[in-house]
Each structure stands twice: as structure tokens, then as C-alpha cells.
């Protein structure tokens, strides 16, 4: 917009043009669009098209045969009706997805913030060391990380199972952390929080370093303790930062797939631990019901939009966004 506004005055004022009598090319007003075109093309191709395609698919009965033959079979909102009438959605899939995401986001943001506060107090050299250590957790691919956590919690001889057995909390001979819904998700949460907190820590740290030293000193002189300083000074100043990390973590944790799918039973064998993401995959690719899978994906997207909006409304006043 600014480009267009700046060029407008030149249109009538002949003196502004280096060569009098030269006509402005009519393409002038289209220039911003041309400049935007590459970005729009990429976004349209990579984001908009798949989104529209998923919406269209969700209104069809689309199986392997339709896929190969290219025929379409419109069924209106049948997929959605089937989906919403499925008791499993309300009993297991939706609670799993929502509760897991809420817990994982809360833990990720809290742990990340605590680590950021720690980092801010360290000397540059030590901070560099700790940051490197944290970045390793972030750099591990989700697949590798998940297998490591599964390995740690392997029944009978996994190191965590042995440790919990030594503490007398479980019996290593009979316990299977991946059987029970709660313990399955406890392991998944550990995995996701471990993988997600470095991003939060580094982002919050960047914000912390922008808070002027004087403000903290003034607060200390006023007699504010660390708790008070965080809530009255740090948090209000870093609201936008927290908005970003919370929303991003929410989006990531809601659509978490790899970390669930690769855990024992997470690929659909254990029906109690399905999430919207893994369920959509199982329906689409194991069942060849792409229409229903797409409907689940649409539901997930809608849910994500609503929750993100509510989050932002609750946490932050409108004018701050």
C-alpha cells in the first residue's frame, strides 16, 4: 500500500518526473501486485490450494478407487454427520487431543520461561554453553527423539521403568507404560515438552534482554520481590512475546502426529490413545477413506482456530494485538 501511495502524487505532477512528457506506464498500479506475486503464488500453491482441496474432499466419498480413476462422488455433509455421531470422537479422540495440547502447551511455556529466566542471569559464557545444550534438544528430529523416549520407557528393561521400580512406584515385571492412556500421554508429554521448550526459552530470553535494566533496578528499590517483579514488570512487557509462543505452541501441540504415531500402539492399534491427527491419518491411509479423513482434518483446523482466538482473547486485551 505504501508503495502505491508514494507513487500516486507523481502521476499528475509533470515536474516530478525526470523526463517531461513521458507517460507513466499503466502498469504502475499493478507493480505492487507483481512484486507480491511470487509470495502469493507460493502461499496460494502451498497453503491455499491444499486447504481448499481438503475442504472439497471432506464433502466426497473418496476412496482408493476414486483416487485411481479420478471419479468423484459427492456426499454433502455425510462425512461430518458420521464423524460427529461417532461416540469415539467424544469419548476418546477429542478429550485426548484437547487435554494433551492444553497440558503440553502450559508445561512447555512454563518450563521455557523458567529456563529463559535462568539464562538471563547467567554470564555470557555459561549462557552460551547452556543455550547450546538446549539447542541440541531442539535440533533432534521428532522421529529420533520419540524413539529415544520409547527406548527409555520400554517395559521391563527400559531405564525409566527400572528407575521407577527401584523407587517402588511400579513393578517393572508387569508395568507397561504404553498400555494405559494416562501413562502413554505422560510419556508423550515429556517428549513434546522436551522438544518444544527450547524455542520458548530462546524467544522469551530475547524478550528479557530488551527490558531496560533501570526498570528492574527501580522495582528492586521499591521493594518488589522476584515474584512481584515477574508479574508486574516482566510479564506485562513481554505480553506480545508470550502471545506468540503460546499460540505457536498451541498450534504445534494440537496437530502433533509423529510423537504419538510412533509410540507403541499409537498407530491405531491402541484405540484409546488416538488423537485427531492420528485418527485422520488412519482413516485416510489405512482405511482409504480420504473423505472422512479430510473431514477430521477440517474439524481439527476449525478447533484450532477457535481455541487460538479464545486463548488470545483471554490472555491479551484486544488493543495489544
Amino acid at each position, binding site marked *: 500500500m505504501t508503495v502505491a501511495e508514494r507513487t500516486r502524487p507523481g502521476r499528475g505532477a509533470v515536474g516530478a518526473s525526470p523526463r517531461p512528457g513521458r507517460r507513466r506506464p499503466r502498469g504502475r498500479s499493478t507493480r505492487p501486485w507483481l512484486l507480491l506475486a511470487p509470495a502469493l503464488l507460493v502461499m496460494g500453491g502451498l497453503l491455499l490450494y491444499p486447504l481448499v482441496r481438503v475442504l472439497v474432499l471432506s464433502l466426497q466419498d473418496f476412496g482408493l478407487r476414486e483416487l485411481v480413476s479420478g471419479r468423484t462422488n459427492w456426499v454433502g455433509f455425510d462425512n461430518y454427520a458420521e464423524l460427529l455421531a461417532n461416540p469415539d470422537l467424544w469419548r476418546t479422540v477429542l478429550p485426548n487431543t484437547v487435554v494433551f495440547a492444553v497440558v503440553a502447551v502450559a508445561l512447555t511455556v512454563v518450563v521455557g520461561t523458567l529456563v529463559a529466566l535462568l539464562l538471563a542471569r547467567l554470564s555470557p559464557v555459561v549462557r552460551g554453553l547452556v543455550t547450546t545444550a538446549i539447542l541440541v534438544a531442539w535440533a533432534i528430529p521428532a522421529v529420533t527423539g520419540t524413539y529415544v523416549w520409547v527406548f527409555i520407557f520400554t517395559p521391563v528393561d527400559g531405564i525409566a521403568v527400572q528407575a521407577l521400580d527401584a523407587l517402588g512406584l511400579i513393578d517393572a515385571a508387569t508395568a*507397561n507404560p504404553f498400555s494405559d492412556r494416562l501413562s502413554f500421554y505422560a510419556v508423550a508429554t515429556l517428549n513434546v515438552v522436551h522438544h518444544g521448550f527450547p524455542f520458548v526459552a530462546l524467544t522469551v530470553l530475547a524478550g528479557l534482554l530488551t527490558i531496560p535494566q533501570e526498570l528492574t533496578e527501580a522495582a528492586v528499590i521499591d521493594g518488589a520481590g522476584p515474584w512481584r517483579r515477574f508479574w508486574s514488570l516482566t510479564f506485562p512487557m513481554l505480553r506480545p512475546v508470550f502471545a506468540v509462543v503460546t499460540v505457536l505452541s498451541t498450534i504445534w501441540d494440537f496437530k502433533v502426529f509423529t510423537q504419538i504415531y510412533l509410540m507403541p500402539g499409537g498407530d491405531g492399534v491402541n484405540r484409546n490413545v488416538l488423537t485427531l491427527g492420528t485418527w485422520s491419518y488412519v482413516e485416510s491411509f489405512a482405511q482409504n477413506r480420504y473423505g472422512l479423513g479430510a473431514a477430521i482434518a477440517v474439524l481439527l483446523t476449525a478447533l484450532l482456530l477457535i481455541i487460538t482466538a479464545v486463548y488470545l482473547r483471554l490472555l491479551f486485551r484486544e488493543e495489544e494485538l
Partner: protein
Amino acid sequence: MWSRPGSRGTRRAAVALLAVSALAVAGCGGGGGGADAGGDRTLTVWIMEGTNPDPTSYITELSAAFQERTGATLDVQFLQWASAHDRFVTAIAGGTTPDVAEVGTTWIAEFGDAGALVDLGPRIQEAGLSDGLVDGLVEAGTLGAALYGMPWYAGVRSIVYRTDVFTELGLEPPTTWDELVAVGQAVKEGRPDLVPLPIAGDNEFAVYPFLWGAGGEIATQDGGTWTSHVDSPESRAGIQFYADLALRHGLSTPAAANWRETHLKDAFTKGEAAMIFAGSWTPKAILEDAPELEGKIGAFPIPGPDGGLAPSVLGGSLLSVFESSDDQDLAWQLVEMMGTGEFAAKWAAESSYFPGTEELLNEAAQSSDPLVAPFARQMVESGRSVPVTPAFGQIQGNKTIAAMMRSILTGEATVEQATSTAAAEMNEIFAGGA
């Protein structure tokens, strides 16, 4: 126009656009398989791997021989059985299917029905091969009048055990279900460091021998409609016995509720299990990884409840050509080469699978090898097919039986509840069609 300075921006934008579209085109160009234009033809081939011996040397020889004969090179990719179904389906969806692939007997109807596979019937007929093929494999690959694959190998599962442990404890291979329990309990008492007979949750092929052995059925067809029978009293009794090996008799380990067949092999290879349900191809793979077990491995057929043999799934693979292949003639040449003669025999010998042609199979069944004979007996005397319908591939994809066994083994559901749930799921899929 191009001489005017004002158009510079437009030109730049055009250049940027061009660059982006070039990138996009390059992005689309990658991936996919098939033959390139020009002289060097390449066939993409998918081969399964899981509990079988390492096939690398066979593939190297095959590639060399095929190149010599046709001048085309092979791009062979190995797929894990556990994730292969999804890989096939996503490849069909994305148009990145291979030219030739090994397709499991229980999936071929599903992919063929979808129109992804070439009907090889006419070519097999033309080559004069139709008569000598193993019936069970032909049946699995046939849908309507079309035959969607060339039988490559057959396999059957029995029980592989540690002969040294049996000798030490003075045990004999069991011939009835009661004896199986007794042997398991003797191992449990005599060798507490071993898991006598781990029961894996995600291993449907070990469930069916007991389901069938007790007189049950997986599903039956009546006038074109399939109905699940896993919730019949006989099937339930068989499943109950199988689950009780773990639950009541404690012959398994709790971890096994999440195991697959590959985990059974791993446990045996590590020397942690005394008996496992395993295919004829597994002992060789075990010895590859654990040479110290040489001479300590034996096999016995899965017994029937009161003697005889329990029916065991006659599984296996067919070699299929995909519709999307650019050069179906060349692909068929490869299939014919792998499925007949020298290379079929070599594959059977090296992999310990049973060959897909009657002639070679009969030869293998006469074997006196203690690691082959029990499997051959199980296959010839009591090999049995799972329901031949595209819907059964879908049921497998849905992991219905695995989910059922897992919930029973973890104690979340009784056999009655779990079989009812599974039967309902199966009937829904049968009713919905593929």
C-alpha cells in the same frame, strides 16, 4: 518498452516470477520413478523386509542378470512390512508407485480392486505358466477374472524353539494344546530367565491358528455378503486359549501386548524367549544375527487342540506390475525372471520361503532339514487362506484384530467384549465395501 527506465521494476518482477516458476517446475520434476526418456531404462522395484534374511546379495545378482538381459537397471527399495500398506496407498495417491512390487496376499485384492495393478492373467497364460502355480497364492491374487500378480513365494507360520532348552529340561515338542501349556510352564519353572512363549498383541497371524483350531472362522461369505465370525463361541474359545497363554498361564511378558512379529524375532535373537510364533523364513534371519544359536534352534508345527495340526495362514507374496508403470513389458520381463526358474529357486533357497510354483514347492516340501520340514508339513497339511476380499485388506489396515488382541492382553477388555467390538468393526467394513 524495455528501453524505458520505468519498466525496470516490471522486468525485475518478471525475472522474480520466472525464478519462482522455475523452482516450482524443478520441484515437480523430482520424485516419481519410472523410465527416463533415452536409452537408460530404470525399473523401480519394492521388496518387503521384516523377519526374513537379508536379501541384499540376491538383489545384487538379480540386478546384474537383469541388466545383462535387457540393458535396464533396477532401483530396488526395501520396505518394512509394518508400514508397507501405508506406503503403497500413499504412493498410489501421489502417483509415485513403483513399476514392480512384492505385494502381500492380503493386500493384492484391495489394490487390484482400486485399479492400481495390471491384470497379469493374459501374460501368465501366454508364457504358459498358469498351470504350475500354487493354488492358495493364485486364489489370493484373483479378483473376478483378473489375476493381479505372479505368485512369488508362499510362507506359513509355525513355532520356533530352543532345542538346547528343551533338551536341558527334558521336554518334547508339544502335539496338543494342553501339552503346549505344559511345555510352557515347564520352561517357566526350569528357566525363569526366559520368556517361555511371548504373545504379541499386533500379530494377527498367530491368532488365526487358534481361532481356526477351536473350530471358529474369521469371516464367511454368503451370497456375496461377508460376515465376521470372530465373535462366534468357537472363535472366542480359540482366542481365549491364545490369550490365556499370556494371561492365565503367564507364558508371556506384559511388554508383548504392544509387540509386533519383528519384536518376537528380536526377543528370540537376544536369547530372551524359548519359543516364538515364526515363519519359515525367520530361523535363517535369526542365525544371521545370532550365530551363537546355531544348532540350538528347532521348529514344530502349531498343534491342533487334541492332536493333529492347527490350520495356519498360508501367506506369501505376489509380484505385481503397477498400472502407472511406463514400460509394462519390461516390468513383466522382470516379474517372469523373478517368479520362475533360477531366480525363483534361488530366492526360495536363500530366504527359506516356499516357492510360488508347484514344481519348486514339491521339491522344497521333501526337505529333511529340521528347520524346513515342520513348516512344510504345516503348509501342505493345514495351510489355509484368510478371507479373499478387498475388504480384508482394509480390516488389516484398520488393525482390527491387533486392536482386539491388545485390549485383551492388557486386560482392558474381556474376550467377549473385544471380539464383539472387532466383529462390529469388520461387519461395518464388509458392509461399506472398499
